[in-house]
């Protein structure tokens, strides 16, 4: 069986010549979650964006289900993938329901189907709509929601067309730690039942460990580690250790001890 997503020697450079990604090769198994970890500017988002052709590589190719993404229709390719980004991605002039059903709307599916699907998904992401309530979520606009609620709607929208692949670019990056933890729990529960192939870009080690079946560490456009979460925690590789040490610094400062 071909890999759900395969990167073959992907290199990306900006027109001015700076290299963003350098010869990346990875194969992602179907139904797994791969966390792409790295600091800002390491090329994580760029790598994710080669999958839905928001970025065209300079060389190499990306295969989805064994087929090169550069062959075939880019619109169909994108509709077959859920896409979630940080907070700002909802359409401010559409209600929650229309935001969620937008991909179905773009495909010309009937209104009733869109409304039904929207409601199913809002329930799935923990925003149970209530037709009778005057402040029904489905009828609200994005500016009437909290950050966490907006992010749930964004996730519902990404899942609307039942894509096999979910691309998530720092989806919870703008949320406070508690809301973020709630979202991570919700996502984990949701993914457990859905068997999606997920590519999750994050700079948060905890998030990568919690959600990822596998962690790929990027640094300056190169994949420098590709490990399972428990391996990541034990690796002696200096870059991995450095990343690990950047987290939970409070503990080492004695924050967990009672001071006398």
């Amino acid at each position, binding site marked *: 069986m071909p890999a759900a997503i395969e990167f073959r020697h992907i290199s990306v450079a900006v027109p001015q010549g700076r290299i963003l990604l350098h010869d990346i090769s990875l194969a992602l198994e179907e139904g797994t979650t791969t966390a792409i970890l790295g600091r800002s500017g390491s090329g994580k988002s760029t790598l994710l964006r080669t999958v839905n052709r928001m970025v065209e590589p300079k060389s190499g190719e990306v295969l989805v289900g064994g087929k090169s993404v550069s062959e075939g229709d880019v*619109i169909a390719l*994108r*509709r077959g993938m859920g*896409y979630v980004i940080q907070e700002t*991605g909802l359409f*401010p002039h559409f209600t929650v329901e229309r935001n969620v059903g937008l991909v179905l*709307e*773009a495909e010309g599916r009937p209104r009733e189907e869109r409304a039904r699907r929207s409601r199913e998904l809002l329930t799935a992401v923990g925003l149970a709509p209530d037709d009778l309530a005057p402040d029904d979520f489905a009828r609200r606009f994005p500016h009437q929601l909290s950050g966490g609620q907006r992010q749930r709607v964004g996730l519902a929208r990404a899942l609307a067309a039942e894509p096999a692949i979910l691309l998530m670019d720092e989806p919870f990056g703008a949320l406070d730690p508690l809301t973020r933890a709630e979202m991570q729990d919700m996502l984990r529960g949701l993914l457990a039942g859905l068997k999606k192939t997920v590519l999750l870009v994050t700079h948060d080690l905890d998030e990568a460990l919690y959600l990822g079946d596998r962690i790929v560490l990027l640094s300056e456009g190169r994949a420098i580690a590709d490990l399972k979460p428990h391996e990541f925690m034990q690796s002696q590789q200096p870059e991995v250790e450095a990343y690990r040490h950047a987290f939970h610094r409070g503990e080492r400062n004695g924050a967990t001890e009672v001071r006398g």
Partner: protein
Amino acid sequence: MSSGFLSQYGGEIGTLTLEHVWLTAWAMLIAAAIAIPVGVGLTRSPHWAKPVIAVANILQTIPSLAMFGFLLPLPWLGDRAARIAIAALTAYALLPIVRNTYAGIRGIDPAILEVARALGLTGRQRLFKVELPLAASFIFAGLRTATVTCVGIATIAAAVGAGGLGELIFRGVASVDNRLVLAGAIPAALLALAADSALGLLERWFKVPAQ
């Protein structure tokens, strides 16, 4: 104004007001039909934005009386005074509409446009479902500026015999009758105010709240 004046000129004021509205409305329709697509086109190739907006800018600096004069000898336009008036008003209306359409679309949060692409919306769907609705408030602001300008300039159209409320003003000036001048000027001012508030209402209606 005495009731005698109104009973003498009331009918004519009504007809000329309608003529005025008719001239302006046609000009605005034609201008919008040209300027909105041009504004959208400029967002697709921004290197054209500067020269195109400069040309629209120059059109707007031509004194209105001169503009009517320039158009007079042109073959099809020159046949009918109303055509000249509509063509001239259209020329004046282009700039604010082009500029606002362009600025309105360019001002949309890039993350929104990126998501629209990434979700697989076609170029057409992005334009009609996302870009135009999000820029609508700006576009209506442009239409508002253009309409108010045109209602004013349309009074000059009477100079080439195109009718409208300018006719009363010109006649009043010629016969040194301030009542006639006001009979043209007041309805023209009211028209401008009405257009301003009606389009201002649409502008606010389409305003998208910030997240």
